[in-house]
């Protein structure tokens, strides 16, 4: 055991002991001890006993079981405890420490080659799950007003109950504005890059400007474009076009210069024309750069469309919903929109990554080498 693992193990078992000794909750005004919650007590006793790891080896999966049991027990007890007291919070700390211990030991085991590498996927999932559990437990047991931060279960309930609204907003913002703007903006950036690539003068003149514009708060043009193109989705698509154009332009121009001199010379010895060189050598060599821009743009596009809706929309759309529901203090609906946006953003990004892996299969970062 490393020093860190020892420290976490002591924290975990110590928190179990503290949770057993301190008042666990307050029910109907009277303090309720741990004996009234047999399941939680069982978890805490098992956690306390795990201190035996200093004498006998304890499997790392046992820590995983403890963490899982602790999370389940605490979530179940959320509905029966009235107000959480110190004992509850120590139990939460204990469950979290066990999950950390599992993660710590698992990554060491993977490093030593004892455990399969694919199990490494468990680690980020554990992290996400612990955040959700702590969020749920802290907001509900801590009595955080749902107006500030609703519990994940509340948000989920809201998502399920207002699917039609969410779908309409998604259609308006994502399927219309984002996708149209993304394709037009990326396509235009790509074509302009190929056009100016033939002229060294334009390249020298436009590239520094493009780089500069990429650093600007372009989202600020949203009010102007909403004024020009009206309230419906075309104005949002226009914002997306402006936001995605420059990253694509700059990256494509850089990518077109990525092919080495040797390969270019070879194309020349083949007597390849400009277009042949472009399609057979330079565009494939530029693909990693182009996909870099496509990935950056996938997030930018969603942001641009949603922010543009703050400046005026018909009564549908994710940005519209977010800004009006904030005003009406329906924060759970706002979080539901955020969840949809995050999911859409991640999926969009994931799809671009999948296409990238298929197209640039030859690149070291895809072949398994370290980029």
């Amino acid at each position, binding site marked *: 055991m490393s020093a*860190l693992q020892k420290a976490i193990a002591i924290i975990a078992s110590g928190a179990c002991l503290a949770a057993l000794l301190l008042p666990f909750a307050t029910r109907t005004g009277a303090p309720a001890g741990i004996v009234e919650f047999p399941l939680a007590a069982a978890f805490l006793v098992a956690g306390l006993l795990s201190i035996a790891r200093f004498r006998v080896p304890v499997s790392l999966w046992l820590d995983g079981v403890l963490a899982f049991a602790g999370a389940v027990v605490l979530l179940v007890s959320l509905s029966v405890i009235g107000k959480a007291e110190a004992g509850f919070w120590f139990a939460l700390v204990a469950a979290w420490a066990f999950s*950390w211990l599992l*993660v*710590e030991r*698992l*990554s*060491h085991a*993977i*490093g030593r080659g004892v455990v399969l590498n694919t199990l*490494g996927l468990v*680690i*980020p999932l*554990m*992290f*996400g799950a612990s955040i959700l559990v702590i969020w749920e437990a802290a907001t509900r047991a801590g009595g955080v007003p749902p107006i*500030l*931060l609703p519990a994940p279960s509340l948000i989920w309930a809201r998502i399920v109950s207002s699917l039609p609204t969410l779908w309409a907003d998604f259609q308006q913002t994502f399927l219309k504005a984002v996708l149209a703007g993304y394709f037009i903006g990326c396509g235009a950036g790509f074509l302009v890059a190929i056009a100016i690539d033939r002229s060294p*003068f*334009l390249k*020298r*003149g*436009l*590239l*520094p*400007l493009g780089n*500069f514009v990429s*650093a*600007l*708060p372009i*989202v*600020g*043009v949203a*009010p*102007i474009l*909403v*004024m*020009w193109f009206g309230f419906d989705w075309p104005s949002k698509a226009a914002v997306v076009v402006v936001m995605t154009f420059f990253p694509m332009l700059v990256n494509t121009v850089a990518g077109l210069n990525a092919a080495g001199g040797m390969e270019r010379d070879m194309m020349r010895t083949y007597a390849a024309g400009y277009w042949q060189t472009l399609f057979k050598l330079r565009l494939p060599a530029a693909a990693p750069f182009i996909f870099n821009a496509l990935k950056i743009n*996938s*997030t930018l596009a*969603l*942001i641009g469309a*949603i*922010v543009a809706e*703050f*400046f*005026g929309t018909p009564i549908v759309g*994710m*940005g519209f919903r*977010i*800004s009006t529901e*904030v005003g009406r203090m329906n*924060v759970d609906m*706002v979080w539901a929109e*955020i969840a949809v*946006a*995050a999911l859409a*953003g*991640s999926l*969009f*990004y994931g799809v671009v990554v999948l296409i990238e892996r298929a197209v640039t299969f030859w690149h070291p970062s895809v072949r398994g080498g370290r980029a």
Partner: protein
Amino acid sequence: MGKALRDGNTLPVLIVLGVLVVFWYLAAIWLNAPWQFGVYERAGTTGWGWTDFVRDTWSQERPVLPSPHQVMIELWNTTAAMAPTSKRSLVYHGWVTLSATLLGFVLGTALGILLAVLIVHNRATDRSLMPWIIASQTIPILAIAPMIVIISYNVLTGKNPLAEMLHLDADAARLVSKALISTYLSFFPVVVGMVKGFRSPEQIQLDLMHTYNASASQTFWKLRFPIALPYLFTSMKVAVAASLVGAIVGELPTGAVAGLGARLLGGSYYGQTIQIWSALFAAAILAGVLVIAVGVVERLVTERMGARPA
């Protein structure tokens, strides 16, 4: 001088800029023409000449597209020709935005470096945090910035232990809540860049530190940190621009009365296009100045550390 002009980027950039300005003037005539026709019709003016027409489209009160000189005059009037304390001064609004930007940038850079240190030194942190850090950026945080600003403002000024501990007045709370958005946007490039930077020492250099019996902290301060500095500055240039965007968007629909974002929103509500464009230019100038400032600090630091000028 002549050679620098011919071979450098200056001349092409200037020419492209000049072409853009010409296009802008032409576009202003074209876009403002319908309104101008309407004005002439209502006033009953007939027999107007082309020169009058062009001059009028370039000097409307609320043009669809203001001409460049209108924007420049507005910029001049609201900065140099006005007391910086005035509520209409862009210097005042720029400062409100800049303070949130800088606070968020400093917090974000510190957080980014801290996370990168944890990630480099602990494998469990690397495996559990890194995927979520990347996923965090696919969330359109800017889109929910207004809500985060409202919530954190309410938390910071409400009745709770945190607010009582910090004791912020309304302005400071508004500043901090905007800076949170900037922090969220600016920590990401720093984490990614610094993880790469901290891992850039070669094995042979790490081995040397090992033979010196250097502790982890000595290896960090004498090898990893200096070698990661170029990565830090590159990421900071990206981070400071992102931080400015965060501060501006954080000012949008929160009922904020000050800041460049509030100027944008106000201009859009009242159709004051010249005000929107001048706020936009002020933001662009601010972004340029911030990126250049980071570059200057970079040059000073690398020179001081004895690096060869690139």
